[in-house]
């Protein structure tokens, strides 16, 4: 649609400093009355050049930067990166690591979706939801803190395994989540699903068809709300996801309400996976035994000469990764997160390309809001579920 600025239309600026844009997103809206004729997103306010910076860092030093892209799902980002590098190195990790990674990735999905639910409800006007969801989020933060020592930027996964073994009270903390979350999810649904205002604000808003979604390269809940059954965990399993039994919830109408239902159901499915992973957690080492790539355990470093040398060499020089390239896709809470790693045989990545799900999903904003009202823009931005740290990188 061509939007010609005339006497009838008005241009207004939404953002970049606007709480409902979930960061620093600026959208220039062309309005006719209250109807949107055109919406142009302007990005880059949070651009930090992570892809470029990664080219100057040793492989293991890139992991903390991946946390800071999508700060609501740090473990998923870690997972995508370490899987890509492990593929290039040809490392096979122990079963326990796979299970722990799956478990923690699903915990991360809960974290991302629950923050989404709270903030989305806040955008739409249901303020109390934020307080409830952040209360439950503390349980997840506790797990993060227990495993890695940090509440948000966990940096827990390592190339070849995990940073440390799982803590002693890990089971207890996960069981607490498994007990409390199903009840709370019911509460959320009781508060929202049949709420008249919630339905009015979300149903039929930001509708996309399956063809549009495929054309726009959308992934994640946004794509599944249109009825396309695509989940990387099912389509191209990684890190042992093929061993777990779970469903992929699908929508019909492709509107904001369907996305809400899908995310709620995904949280249930995540809990199901977490339970399976916890019950089936095998015994074993927490990282692969690959001298020269994986840091040796600390007691060995203090007692054995070889371990000390390896430790020193990995920290100072890093490890060389054979030349080659690989595109690793994982299902992050927001959609398909891809890491395209190019190695030239040195100890630093030659090129690291991130396929950020939020960035590509944000392209759908313009077709979603065209012809809608100003208030619906906020609903649409919320239902895409963007994190600007990842959009701009």
């Amino acid at each position, binding site marked *: 649609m061509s939007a010609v600025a005339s006497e009838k239309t008005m241009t207004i600026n939404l953002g970049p400093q606007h709480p409902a844009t979930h960061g620093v997103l600026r959208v220039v809206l062309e309005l006719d009355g209250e109807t949107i004729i055109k919406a142009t997103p302007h990005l880059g306010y949070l651009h930090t050049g992570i*892809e470029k910076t990664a080219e100057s860092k040793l492989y293991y030093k890139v992991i903390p930067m991946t946390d800071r892209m999508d700060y609501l799902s740090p473990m998923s980002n870690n997972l995508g990166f370490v899987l890509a590098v492990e593929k290039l190195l040809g490392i096979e990790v122990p079963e326990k690591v796979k299970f722990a990674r799956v478990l923690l990735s699903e915990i991360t999905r809960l974290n991302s979706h629950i923050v989404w639910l709270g903030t989305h409800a806040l955008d739409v006007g249901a303020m109390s939801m934020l307080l409830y969801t952040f209360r439950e989020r503390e349980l997840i933060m506790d797990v993060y803190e227990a495993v890695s020592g940090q509440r948000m930027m966990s940096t827990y996964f390592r190339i070849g395994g995990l940073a440390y073994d799982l803590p002693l009270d890990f089971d207890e903390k996960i069981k607490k989540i498994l007990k409390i979350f199903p009840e709370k999810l019911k509460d959320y649904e009781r508060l929202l699903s049949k709420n008249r205002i919630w339905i009015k604000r979300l149903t039929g808003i930001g509708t996309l068809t399956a063809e549009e979604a*495929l054309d726009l*390269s959308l992934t994640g809940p946004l794509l599944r709300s249109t009825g396309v059954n695509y989940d990387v965990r099912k389509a*191209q399993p990684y890190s042992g996801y093929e061993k777990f039994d779970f469903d992929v919830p699908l929508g019909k109408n492709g509107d904001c309400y369907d996305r809400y239902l899908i995310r709620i159901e995904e949280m249930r499915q995540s809990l199901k996976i977490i339970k399976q992973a916890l019950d089936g957690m095998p015994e074993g080492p927490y990282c692969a035994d690959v001298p020269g790539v994986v840091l040796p355990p600390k007691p060995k470093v203090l007692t054995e000469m070889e371990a000390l040398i390896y430790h020193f060499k990995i920290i100072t020089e890093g490890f060389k990764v054979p030349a080659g390239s690989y595109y690793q896709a994982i299902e992050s809470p927001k959609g398909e997160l891809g890491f395209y790693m190019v190695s030239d045989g040195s100890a630093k990545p030659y*090129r690291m390309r991130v396929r950020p799900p939020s960035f590509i999903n944000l392209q759908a904003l313009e077709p979603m809001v065209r012809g809608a009202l100003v208030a619906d823009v906020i609903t649409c931005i919320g239902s895409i579920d963007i994190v600007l740290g990842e959009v701009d990188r």
Partner: protein
Amino acid sequence: MNRDELTQKEKEVLDALKEQFGDSISGHERTFGQLSIFVENNLIFNIAQFLKDNEKCGFETVSDICGVDWIDCSEMRYEIVYVFYSFRNNTRVLIRTTLPDVNEPKIRSIQPLYPGADWLEREVYDMLGIVFEGHPDLRRILTPEGFEDWPHRKDFPLTYEMPHFSHNKNKPPEIIK
């Protein structure tokens, strides 16, 4: 599965492409279980169209477009990697093409075929300065307005800082590289 062995579907795609484009498909490799097809850069639009419309291929979506700068390579300078995905066949294929070291590298845009390539191409343009011909709205996307360099090129230093203004009107601001 053997690393170098193609799956049935990948073989079909590769054969269909070779039949249609002949020598323009300059090779393929399957590494770590992933198929990459090397193609000539002038045919990228036709190949993308073929991948989308041909029944055997059926690649509905382009997942990612990535530009790589191979500054030390004598035959080429830039490599562009298109990641195509077919939902129907659950197949992922990397189409890789190279561009020579010229002042303004150009390649045809696939945005008219795959609207999802819009921002992806804008990002490659923004970061590497590769012009996508036929793109309806090729503006910079991540860097600020008025930015002139191409940050992902390998000759762009990591600690570069662009001076935004200078109090010295007579002298142009010096660039610290």
